[in-house]
């Protein structure tokens, strides 16, 4: 395995980490409309992710930075090519971060309601658009001989990619629902459990269609294993959610995300961004990667930093392990 292959795996790991972690906090954002019945409940939801969403989001920045360093051509083509969707995602992430931090900083109801609306939409839209983006990366887009994206923004909204968007939206919402079941106490926990079943079923149907489509178009034996693992863990997550085994349900919905991202990267390899115009113009792990020296330094950094990050982020989750209920939410302003 050469270093650029290692980095292909590491980029996949960073995206997996991002979707696993920010996946449930996007989901929780969506649930502020779907699950919460009143404003104290909304606050319970927001506070389940309060201490951790920022750390979760850094997985995205790491994926972006690591792509720049390890695969500059991929970074350049992807972000200049998906310009407008990426702009929408960036705007959402900006507003979302500010919304979490500023929402409780004034007592006026209108102020808080506006930020709550913002949290809902800025969670929902990126959850959808990341699926669209990855659908297009896997499917391939119009890339010319200079590695520049030659299509328009409408080319990105093809049925396969849109289905991919629905899958990530549904899957993240499901992941968020089981997370809320795990992190809350009281009535909202019960409702989260019931909602998890319904959202989970929708997710299962969408995932089955998307993974099946991916497998039939460009799958092989290994990707089939990943696809089956994704569907099986989703089914088991549903069973666990139904049985009230919240820890299991959350681990399994997380495993579904891991297996789904693995499936997509497996079908992508050795390309990193296939060209639909001419396969010679596809970006691959070889023609898009950095020099061996840079990759070596980056590997050392990732090998040391990533486990450490996982330890202290994991510790954060342990510190905030207590379930939250409406009784824990005090006065509205600090």
């Amino acid at each position, binding site marked *: 395995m050469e270093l650029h292959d290692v980095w292909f795996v590491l980029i996949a790991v960073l995206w997996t980490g991002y979707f696993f972690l920010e996946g449930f906090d996007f989901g929780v954002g969506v649930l502020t409309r779907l699950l919460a019945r009143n404003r104290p409940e909304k*606050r319970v939801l927001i*506070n389940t992710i*309060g*201490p*951790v*969403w*920022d*750390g979760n*989001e*850094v997985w995205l920045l*790491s994926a*972006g*930075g*690591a792509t*720049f*360093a*390890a*695969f500059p*051509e991929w*970074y*350049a083509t*992807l*972000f*200049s*090519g998906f*310009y*407008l969707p*990426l*702009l929408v995602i*960036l705007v959402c992430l*900006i*507003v979302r*971060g*500010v919304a*979490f931090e*500023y*929402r*409780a*900083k004034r007592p006026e109801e209108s102020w808080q309601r506006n930020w709550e609306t913002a949290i809902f939409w800025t969670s929902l839209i990126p959850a959808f658009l990341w699926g669209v983006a990855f659908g297009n990366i896997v499917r391939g887009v119009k890339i010319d001989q200079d590695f*520049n994206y030659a299509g328009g923004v409408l080319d990105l909204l093809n049925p396969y990619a849109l289905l991919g968007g629905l899958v990530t939206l549904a899957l993240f919402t499901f992941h968020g629902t089981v997370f809320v079941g795990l992190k809350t106490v009281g009535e909202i926990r019960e409702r989260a459990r019931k909602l998890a079943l319904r959202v989970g079923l929708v997710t299962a149907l969408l995932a089955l269609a998307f993974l099946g489509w991916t497998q039939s178009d460009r799958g092989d034996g290994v990707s089939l294993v990943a696809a089956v693992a994704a569907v099986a863990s989703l089914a088991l997550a549903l069973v666990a959610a139904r049985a009230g085994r919240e820890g299991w349900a959350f681990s399994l919905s997380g495993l579904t995300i891991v297996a789904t991202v693995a499936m997509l990267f497996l079908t992508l390899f050795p390309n990193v961004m296939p060209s639909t115009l001419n396969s010679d113009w596809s970006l691959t792990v070889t023609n898009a990667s*950095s*020099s061996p*020296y*840079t990759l070596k330094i*980056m590997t050392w*950094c990732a090998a040391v930093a*990533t486990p450490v*990050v996982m330890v*202290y*982020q994991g510790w*954060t989750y*342990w*510190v*905030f*392990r*207590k379930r*939250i209920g409406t*009784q*824990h*939410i005090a006065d509205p302003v600090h």
Partner: protein
Amino acid sequence: MDLALAPETLARWQFGITTVYHFLFVPLTISLAALTAGLQTAWVRTEKEKYLRATKFWGKLFLINIAMGVVTGIVQEFQFGMNWSDYSRFVGDVFGAPLAFEALIAFFFESTFIGLWIFGWDKLPKKIHLACIWMVSIGTLLSAYFILAANSWMQHPVGYRINGEKGRAELTDFWLVLTQNTTLNQVFHSFSAAFLTGGAFMVGIAAFHLLRKKHIPVMRTSLRLGLVTVAVGGLLTAVSGDTLGKVMYEQQPMKMAAAEALWDGEKPAPFSVFAYGDVDKGHNKVALEIPGLLSFLAHSDFESYVPGINDTNKALQEKFGPGDYKPIVPVAYWGFRWMIGFGMASFSIGLLGLWLTRKKFLLPAAWRTGEDEVPHLVLFRKPLRPRLTRLYWLVAVWTMAFPLIANSWGWIFTEMGRQPWVVYGLFQTRDAVSPGVSQAEVLTSMIVFTTLYAILAVVEVKLLVKYVKAGPPELTEADLNPPTKIGGDSRDADKPMAFSY
């Protein structure tokens, strides 16, 4: 859509807007993290309540500020790929590494421990909670270090070779990129300017309250801390600015010649106080100069030759081929002056304040004040008259803005002074843009970001004003009795959280 503009013009405006805006928050974040950590350390060590109240007060303002720094930083990570894809392809092998290091090492640190600090007041024992804010502070410093190393490589590329086949620069010595003198000097200069900024912020807000005789014990302490920070930060900014300037005279003589509007080389070269000239013809019409000073700034003696804009341009044409290698001279000239002027004004006002509010040194015993009194402003033997006292406090309040202006112009100067290069001597800005991105797309994103940033600026400033006016919070039982166990004490199972969104 095709505007009658060079392809890089809009992309440059966008980069300028998003980056200058981002950098309003960066220095405040760096310095307020450390200052808040310092105050919290004082609380943990002395258990004096004023320190805890100060920690909570400045911590709140720090959080309002870092939120903006974090979200505007997301754009920075992606806009190289969006608007500057050819730049990214050319430099990614070198420039990407410090960015990735920044994310993997510094961003995770900052963002994870900030969550622990915000929500951890009733979940973590006192000392562990204190360690969290120090971790955040270390994270902010590391983050700045890596990004400055990346920028320094654009100012002065080292540790690379050109791969002709791939048409890109490739890293050969990462350690050199991290430790070259441009990096070390830029880091030194930016860090000290960051502390000047945070110190002035503290002084300004403390002065605001002391002028109104409110929250005196906390604000007295904050004022002194702020003034010391301004004095030390300001002094180091001047020292590091001087050494960075000397490095730049070696590495980018054009930038420094433009900073002085020195059209033709002179020996000895004068320092320009004011100049107004004809850029096209390449000379000044009006010039007020201090003889020999520029030679001193460049080479530490009053005699040396300093090359001018016209001769440097000619030298660069011989080296790199025909073309115009001049930056926009008035921007470099005035940017340089505004950077120094505003920075040093803030430093002087802080230094003056440090003297005026001295506690014992050469201060007649009659004018010494207690913990809950507003300090007298004593110039020599007697306090200033009420009108002058009031004037000093007002000036101190306004000083808050000066380092922010200085920082912005510092970056505008150093980035625009490097033009037409994006990587000095290697790669020109006009070759760096994304060929596949239309001007309409760039214009769209520029309008979106500018509008969003303007709205957020209003929101942010209003929140800051609200929390500044509210003053330090009263302490609660829970504040004074932090938990002894990680995760919170079990007797508090149903108690409301100390902090919630």
